[in-house]
């Protein structure tokens, strides 16, 4: 429907608007209206409210007595000392943690996902069952799998330490989520475990769209399969992978539940969302926390735009066909 609408739209500017097209336009808006209202209510309004609250001194103790204070939550000066989210070292630590987590986890998920997708694309017996089984980590709610892993990673009675001790890889149990040198890696590992199936699935879908005749031609010409992969397969599935990477990055930048369950408010792994929640709920600073949440939104918007531009990805590509 969107395709038809677009073509109509460009035609209208040239020709005079006919009764028919006006009617069609009206119908289109009518059909779109419920969705747009729903979006405005569940996404637009909370977003605007959050941005607004970021400019007030709202406090959870008594929300009715908040005042407009301009940019004070972001940056302000008292007695020559700067205050606000923008100069809070904890905030920048959270930004850094989030970026680090996103780059590493999405990178690993993309690579492993691609590998799994190539395996699943091959012909073998029981492929259907394996394809379904691979999705299990993705199907488990994050909060459940995070709790599950936090037990498995427990230093005293966790199964992972038990196994590693059993085979003699380590001599003392490791406190995976408590030790600052392993905490972030533990979080990344669980995220990779959980989200690789998603990447594999999207990549697999792209692989299955590839025309078989190219591969036959390559086979006839006797080209090495590795060369085929880099020269044919990869360029063809690149747009699909990029879309998957953008989706995953959006998710990864907002990461909250996994980190909160595994390491709670610890500053070693605190992400931007954990920071914002801590301010909003634990510290009751609705205004300050909203400012942080607004910055989180800005950071994600910026990074997504950059990723899309850097990847040369056209999000409306499908509409030309």
């Amino acid at each position: 429907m969107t395709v038809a609408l677009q073509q109509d739209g460009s035609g209208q500017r040239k020709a005079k608007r006919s009764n028919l097209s006006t009617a069609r336009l009206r119908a289109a808006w009518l059909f779109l209206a419920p969705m747009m209202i729903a979006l405005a209510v569940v996404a637009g309004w909370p977003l605007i409210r959050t941005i607004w609250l970021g400019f007030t001194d709202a406090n959870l103790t008594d929300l009715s007595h908040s005042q407009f204070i301009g940019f004070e939550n972001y940056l302000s000066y008292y007695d020559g000392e700067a205050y606000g989210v923008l100069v809070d070292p904890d905030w920048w630590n959270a930004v850094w943690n989030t970026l680090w987590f996103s780059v590493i986890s999405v990178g690993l998920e993309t690579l492993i996902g691609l590998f799994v997708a190539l395996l699943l694309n091959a012909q073998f017996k029981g492929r259907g069952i394996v394809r379904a089984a691979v999705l299990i980590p993705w199907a488990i709610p994050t909060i459940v799998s995070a709790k599950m892993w936090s037990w498995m990673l427990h230093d005293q009675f966790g199964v992972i330490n038990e196994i590693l001790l059993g085979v003699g890889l380590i001599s003392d149990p490791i406190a995976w989520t408590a030790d600052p040198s392993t905490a972030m890696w533990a979080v990344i590992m669980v995220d990779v475990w959980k989200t690789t199936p998603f990447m594999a699935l999207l990549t697999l879908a792209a692989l299955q769209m590839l025309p078989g005749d190219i591969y036959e031609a390559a086979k006839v010409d006797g080209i090495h399969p590795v060369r085929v992969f880099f020269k044919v397969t990869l360029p063809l599935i690149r747009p699909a992978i990029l879309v998957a990477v953008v989706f995953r990055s959006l998710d990864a930048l907002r990461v909250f539940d996994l980190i909160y369950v595994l390491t709670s408010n610890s500053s070693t792994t605190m992400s931007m969302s954990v920071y914002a929640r801590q301010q909003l709920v634990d510290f009751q600073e609705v205004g300050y926390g909203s400012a942080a949440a607004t910055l989180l939104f800005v950071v994600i918007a910026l990074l997504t735009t950059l990723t899309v531009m850097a990847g040369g990805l056209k999000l409306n590509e499908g509409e030309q066909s």
Partner: protein
Amino acid sequence: MGIRRTLLSSAVGFAGIAGVAGYAMAAELTISCGSVGQEQSICEQAVEEWSEATGNTVRLFSVPTSTTEQLALYQQILSSGGSDLDIIMIDVIWPGILGNHLLDLAPYSNGVEAEHFQPIVSNNTYQGKLVAMPWYTDAGLLFYRKDLLEKYGADAPKTWGDLTATAKMIQDGERAAGNSKMWGFVYQAKAYEGLTCDALEWIDSFGGGAVVNAQGDITINNEKAAQALTLAASWTGTIAPGGVLSYQEEDARGVFQSGNAVFMRNWPYAWSLGQADDSPVKDKIGVMALPKGGEEGKQTGTLGGWQLAVSKYSESPEIAADLVMYLTSKKEQKRRAIEGSYNPTIAALYTDADILEASPFMGQLKDTFTNAVARPSRATGSNYNKVSNAFYNAVHDVLSGESEASASLAKLERNLKRIKRRGW
């Protein structure tokens, strides 16, 4: 909008009760009364007794075991004006944070609060209103394995230095004897409110103060505090498992009660569980006040304890207040002291023969309970949570070896100044 709605609904609630003349109609209440150890089951027994007597039904609301998370949950429910919870168990440091959402209980108490410890009652008074009834009080204690100390001919430790040495000796001895899981000392060192309690005890026992003094001055950046934290940092991975950095009360109790630790810092509730019939360390546990910082240090323990409060948004506030009065009564506090080793908040119960028989330490350590060091929640008011968070993160950095004690405390002082700005 939310507030108007809740005002309306509580108005309807009041009208409803008045209309049917008080107790004529049975109400349905929801209570949260803890989830650490056997809190919930002990509470359930009392609640059932009360519901049978009054004909009201009561639903138990399960909460997370971490106090920090409990507070977050209550804040979300209360600030939206939700009537999902009628009775809430609140920590000794919360009246200043949640006070605005809680009902004044004075009209329902018939003056019975005069029998309770007065410092707790004044702690529970927010802007002249009695927002919570004292339920039980707490102080950090040192639990130790009598049998192991005897076996190795060690005395109960007088200072933290003694504890470190004794723990090391017994741990090494037991490991050499084949118990590879044995640790010297377990405590709460996860970055959450519990670490604030533990670290405050270490620092206070060295004479390093209570982070912020009664006048509101930031006192934490001092030599004695650094000394205390440096000693505590030396425990991580030596006499305490590395994972202690993510332990809460129940994790520590898990290790100690399975017989895998010589010493444990915990609250009194761990006593009755450790003495239960299914406990591997039954009759092998001793309880004492926490050691001194050094020769010139002092014995101390962080004041804890829990109160029962009624939400302002409750639909049946009178009935809820009645249940609170029942649960905090002398009779019920006595039962809880015997069955769950929860310290009563009523002074008269400390000479009760039945209680002293079940939990002898309550009489012996009465001084510890009455002289416990309070967290700076009064001085810092609604900023307490931020102060505590900055404090436990700074301590956690030291314990995990991320930074030196003196550097971390200097940074903490700067952070606290930022939080304080022109006043708490």
